[in-house]
């Protein structure tokens, strides 16, 4: 799985990116912390079994953030979160069977005032 995150600070009244930090990690354990911003996990206990996923951010972003997350399987959007708490969800066993061997991608943002934290995770569905 690959997890990436980026933090952007947007000055009020301007659309310039004052600060951007991004990192990419290849991981084996299905979860990965992204420096000081938070962590994402995608877990599947075995082939054709359901998948659980979640995105957790540090308290600074957690308190007043608005979260948007989009979940794609083989490029097909299958789930979308648009809420005021950290997003998490699952992919049913029916769907993991259907999309076995294909890519699961979770991408989204956490917006806290003028700060936008972007996140994404990719893995292959077993």
């Amino acid at each position, binding site marked *: 799985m690959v997890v990436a995150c980026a933090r952007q600070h947007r000055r009020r009244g301007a659309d310039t990116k004052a600060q951007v930090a991004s990192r990419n990690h290849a991981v084996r354990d299905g979860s990965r912390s992204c420096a000081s911003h938070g962590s994402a996990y995608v877990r599947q206990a075995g082939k054709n079994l359901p998948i659980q996923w979640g995105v957790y951010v540090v308290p600074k972003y957690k308190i007043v953030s608005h979260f948007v997350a*989009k979940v794609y399987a083989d*490029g*097909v*959007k*299958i*789930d*979308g*979160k*648009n*809420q005021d*708490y950290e997003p998490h*969800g*699952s992919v*049913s066993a*029916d*769907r993991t069977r*259907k999309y076995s061997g294909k890519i699961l991608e979770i991408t989204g943002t956490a917006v806290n005032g003028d700060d936008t934290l972007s996140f994404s995770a990719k893995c292959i569905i077993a």
Partner: protein
Amino acid sequence: MMDDPSAPTLDDWLSLLQRDFEATPAGSVGFQLIRFDPANPQEYRHIIPDIESWAIPGSPTENRFLLRVARNVTSIDDADQDPAKAAVDIASYLQDFVMDELNRPWPSIRVNNDVDVVLEPRLDDSGAPSWAGKGMACHFGELDRYLTT
């Protein structure tokens, strides 16, 4: 399945789920199952602003069933072909939403005045959607008769 004309339709199951979730946060914000036709995205753009993103790449005319709860949207597979299974998928998604909002398990029933059992939506042995857990079960639409919380 749809081959049996007397079998409950998806609308039948949705009516029962409306009753089960009526007193929950999902009932408060309302939920809606729509049949998204990519040829007519304007029909639902007012409730799902990014409705076009739900079109299937490579199959741009294929209709999809989308479940909307508050501002969250998810897709429900094969809802027209297997309404009972779709009803379980819908109930499961709504249950997750309710538990997120309540920050505790839901629904639970008290067994023998002692243990609270959390039920989950499943297909029973006859293929009918039901709430079940640890040997306890009730039909969709009858949850309020057993509910502890």
